[in-house]
């Protein structure tokens, strides 16, 4: 069943269809949002908000465009809005009667992804190497300028074609592609630094990238 068919079924009241849509998209959306906003708790809120907006807009939805593009456009807009507001926000004074600490999120602050991922068993050395490369890439993705990061994540994590990314970010397809190239160049630099540090064994794996 396509996304659009599932959405049409949900419009008619089929909750299971909506659950299927969530199952299908929550992981790519999460991996997009999670790398867009560094704070895990915020990412969780944003992911939730993406689906809440779909719930609210469901009655008006018409299958005029791909559902995935719409979904990822919502996610992208929420993320960029958040990034825009995250800087200039002032502390909110809490009027009396605050109940404890609200949603308890202890230990979920800015989360280094790989700290929570156990190194896979088997060839310990090569696994450690993969882990190290992944960590480099993870950090480099977070450091990408926003417009490059969103294009990279939409293409590689959400698997959207460039044409749809162009629609979602409101830029031309050639622009989107050149952002992708800049993103890859930055990632290459991150991996190149790593190769210099780690020495020969890794150079073979990481490739010569003068």
């Amino acid at each position, binding site marked *: 069943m396509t996304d659009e068919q599932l959405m049409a079924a949900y419009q008619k009241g089929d909750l299971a269809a909506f659950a299927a849509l969530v199952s299908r998209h929550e992981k790519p959306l999460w991996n997009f949002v999670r790398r867009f906003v560094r704070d895990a*708790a915020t990412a969780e809120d944003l992911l939730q908000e993406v689906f809440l907006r779909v719930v609210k807009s469901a009655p008006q939805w018409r299958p005029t465009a791909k559902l995935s593009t719409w979904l990822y456009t919502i996610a992208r807009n929420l993320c960029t809005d958040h990034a825009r507001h995250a800087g200039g926000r002032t502390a909110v004074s809490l009027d009396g009667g605050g109940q404890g600490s609200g949603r308890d999120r202890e230990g979920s602050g800015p989360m280094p992804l790989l700290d929570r991922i156990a190194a896979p068993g088997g060839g310990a050395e090569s696994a450690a190497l993969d882990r190290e490369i992944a960590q480099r890439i993870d950090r480099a993705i977070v450091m990408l300028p926003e417009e490059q990061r969103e294009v990279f994540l939409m293409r590689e994590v959400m698997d959207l074609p460039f044409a749809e990314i162009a629609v979602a970010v409101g830029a031309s397809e050639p622009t989107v*592609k050149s952002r992708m190239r800049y993103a890859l160049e930055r990632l290459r630099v991150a991996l190149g630094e790593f190769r210099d540090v780690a020495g020969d064994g890794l150079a073979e794996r990481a490739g010569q990238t003068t």
Partner: protein
Amino acid sequence: MKCADITLRLVDYLYGELSSADRSAFDAHVAGCESCGREVGSMERTLGQARTATRGVLAQTPPAQVRAVVLAAASAAQKDIAERGSFWRWLSKPWLLPVFAAASAITVFVIAKSVILNPEPLMKAKAPEEAALLLPKDREVRQQAPAQSKPLTEAPMESAPAADEGSALRRVRGKAKQNSVARAAAEGRADQSRWAQPPAGWGRAADDVNERADRDERGEREADSVAERSLSFAAAPASPPPAPAPATTADSKAEAQSKGRNQPEAPLSLVDLMRKAERYYDERRWGEAVAVYRELLRRFPQHKSIAVWKARLATAEHNAYRR
């Protein structure tokens, strides 16, 4: 192709988006140009490693709580969607327009007549509470206890059996009540938006239209206790329990429920509260949003939107307390 073209077309090459002619030209240049060969090779490896990492060890599973909250909200909206979808689809049939216009004109006339013949109670009602002011039962309650307000969900809904009658009522109220002109105008806009062809569910514009109609709609409708009972709210731990607020006097519970709750000041209506909550939420005024969503949950524990309110309260609380 020249070296500059290779750079320009690199992403097309990496993602297999070159035409076969371009691909041949690309390959021919790269084969004969050492620096382009190195460049293309290193970019291929970089993309390969990035892809392996992002789809492998870096790929994460979202927190299960998101799914729980979202499905609860979807379930709450489900019945509403089915009803509203079929209702408005039916309404939007063009041949029904004159029929509907005639029906509302008659309704308006009948109600306006009763208002003109008996304007007294309207004049007395000064509370900003807008919940079905014209409904006789509510009026009686109001006269018995003028200082008390009555939550909308407890209004006698059998007096407003259909949405079209409800909107007619609202229009009349807009004319009859001088102090609600602005609100009536807002409602008029929402009504018009229903006549227009519903926009495609695309992007923020549709979202806004939807929210406007939704706000309007949710305010008028009966609490959907059936849908709510099927929900699990384990997902929103910090939200206040959806129990009715305790009456401040020693009234018996039944009395408190039949007369509404004692409030020090006249509280906002459901519609106003919901508008306020959405505005604070959209403007990221988290502390204020928390307060309003808590009030909504406390005062309208049976409303069908509480799953959404709880989810937003959790978000607002998180953002408010984080700072």
